[in-house]
């Protein structure tokens, strides 16, 4: 049978990113903005539903990081069911951690190999026909094969801990509904090569080496592109260690001074504000202590390696020391170093998964703990793209009466705008038209943060990007879309 290419009429509900750049009469950039076009309040989807449904309902926010939403909501409901000082049982906590680090592993692997590596390998001026994952396969086949298997490994970890690939029900208020069987454990520890954790760790270590090698040859691009000072926010473990699942809130400024530390996230509203700007559907979070103008911050891999004091696994710690030495211990404010930080986190996730698999607590039988019920709960996790806030209030019928979610992409709203502005002023400035190379650079700046427009707009789907150039009178000069 003859084959034909069919593109239409496949559709998804679309989130949509748009960049607008305004020029003066001399074509100098006067203003640039990154807009999220579609916004629908997901919170109302949860309102009126029993609180124990929230961890499953919120998985529908995002097909890429449903586990992060699942766990943030579960942590909030832990508080509602009255989990006390003693916290989750060791089995429940470690199962959730395994799920979460499996999620981090698959997401980070996907981002690096699918998004970052084409840009790095082929450069911003490369033909878009090869500057994609297929191009990576054609030129670096091993990288691409590994990408698929690394992601698949992380997803199998999620399946074993959440119970399902999609709409997992692993985490429930106060605990978890299954432990890890010895057979499941051994499939990850002793699976036939390459599908075992030791091979996965080795591959991630090699990915870090790959990046460092590339960086050595391309310092101008990696260090200078969209670099700007900012505050950085994340959870860290009480002792300052990198921790994706639980901890206290910490923020540092561009010079490393702690502007927030040892903050219990149940009090996040005392410290984080959300500014509404008339031109954007997405809010702009800020640190109240520093105010709306100066209090904006970055979240995600770059921020986490700026806020934490150390990484509690040996291979990742060694790489962290090299990474920190590059900026002489000071915070790293270079947007494209996010890729380096992400790979160190990928390596760390592999090491944590291995350590957890070796822990007999995963075969324990105490799955759930509860206490005196409360009417309000807040859950935070470090999702792959950054800090994720879930906040719920419930009424006397156990139904959710208020929900507030601050997703990673919303936290990174201002930084993404700053990154786009950097490109506008350094690449688009003085021009009256948008070239393919310019569009590529706008993409590279935004991709470093890998915005989940689905999460941020609360829709699921493809995310086309438009760049529009306006003259001083507000007339459209040029438009390019991808």
């Amino acid at each position, binding site marked *: 049978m003859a084959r034909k290419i*069919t593109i*239409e009429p496949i559709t998804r509900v679309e989130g949509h990113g748009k960049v607008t750049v305004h020029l003066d009469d001399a074509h100098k950039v006067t203003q640039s903005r990154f807009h999220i076009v579609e916004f629908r309040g997901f919170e109302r989807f949860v309102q009126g539903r029993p609180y124990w449904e929230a961890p499953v309902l919120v998985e529908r926010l995002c097909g890429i990081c449903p586990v992060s939403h699942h766990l943030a909501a579960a942590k909030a409901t832990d508080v509602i069911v009255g989990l006390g000082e003693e916290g989750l049982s060791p089995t429940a906590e470690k199962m959730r951690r395994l799920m979460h680090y499996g999620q981090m592993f698959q997401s980070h692997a996907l981002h690096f190999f699918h998004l970052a590596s084409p840009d790095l390998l082929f450069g911003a001026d490369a033909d878009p026909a090869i500057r994609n994952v297929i191009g990576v396969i*054609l030129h670096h086949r091993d990288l691409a094969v590994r990408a698929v298997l690394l992601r698949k490994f992380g997803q199998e970890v999620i399946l074993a801990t959440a119970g399902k690939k999609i709409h997992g029900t692993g985490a429930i208020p106060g605990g978890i509904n299954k432990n890890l069987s010895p057979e499941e454990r051994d499939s990850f520890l002793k699976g036939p090569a390459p599908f075992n954790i030791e091979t996965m760790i080795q591959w991630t270590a090699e990915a870090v080496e790959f990046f460092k090698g590339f960086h050595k040859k391309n310092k101008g691009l990696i260090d200078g592109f969209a670099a700007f000072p900012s505050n950085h926010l994340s959870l860290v473990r009480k002792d300052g260690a990198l921790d994706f699942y639980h901890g206290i809130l910490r923020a540092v400024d561009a010079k490393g001074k702690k502007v927030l530390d040892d903050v219990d996230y149940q009090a996040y509203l005392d410290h984080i504000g959300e500014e509404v700007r008339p031109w954007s559907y997405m809010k702009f979070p800020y640190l109240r202590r520093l105010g709306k103008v100066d209090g904006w911050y970055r979240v995600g891999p770059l921020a986490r390696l700026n806020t934490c004091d150390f990484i509690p696994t040996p291979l990742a710690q060694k790489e962290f020391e090299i990474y920190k030495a590059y900026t002489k211990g000071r915070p790293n404010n270079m947007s494209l170093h996010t890729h380096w930080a992400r790979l160190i986190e990928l390596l760390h996730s592999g090491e944590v998964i291995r350590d957890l698999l070796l822990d007999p607590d995963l075969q324990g039988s105490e799955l759930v703990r509860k206490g005196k019920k409360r009417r309000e709960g807040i859950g935070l996790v470090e999702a792959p793209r950054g800090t994720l806030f879930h906040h719920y209030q419930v009424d006397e019928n156990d139904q959710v009466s208020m929900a507030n979610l601050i997703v990673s992409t919303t936290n990174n709203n201002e930084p993404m705008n700053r990154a786009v502005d950097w490109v506008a002023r350094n690449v688009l400035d003085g021009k009256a038209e948008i070239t393919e190379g310019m569009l590529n650079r706008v993409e590279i700046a935004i991709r470093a943060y890998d915005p989940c*427009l689905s999460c941020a707009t609360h829709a699921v789907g493809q995310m086309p990007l438009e760049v529009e150039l306006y003259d001083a009178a507000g007339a459209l000069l040029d438009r390019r879309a991808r």
Partner: protein
Amino acid sequence: MKTVVLGIGNPGRRDDGLGWALVNEINRGQARNSLDNKKGGQAPISREIGACPLFIEWKYQLNIEDAHAIKDADLVVFADAAREGEAPATLAELAPAAEISFSTHALSPAAVLALAEELYGRAPQAFLLAIRGYDFDLGEGLSPQAAANLEAALALLADFLASF
């Protein structure tokens, strides 16, 4: 013959869940068939699709690992909701095609086929079953028109697989 049906979409966005709904129906039908076969009865035909069991998957969106999932298939059907196009549903053959992607959040069926071809040396024959939807707002359940289109899509798929 190994046939894979991937239902794509988000059931939390009304008609965007058409792909899932189709796979749910296949799953229910196969479960009933299996039960009836165990009892020695006749397999019900209302949801019986194809002579062979189908490998089914529920997907929010496609991604790189789906190339691995389909690499050994003889036939793949991507079932998805369509915001435009003919109602109730259309079935069209796909060819592998590389694409530029702005985000990690989704791949097109054609890109998944291209990945399979490049990574594993072959892309299975593949079709897109596009089922027309109308309401993509937050909420659960299909609109009445979409539910009717689902029935028609199931019949279309059954006829197609029977003749394949």
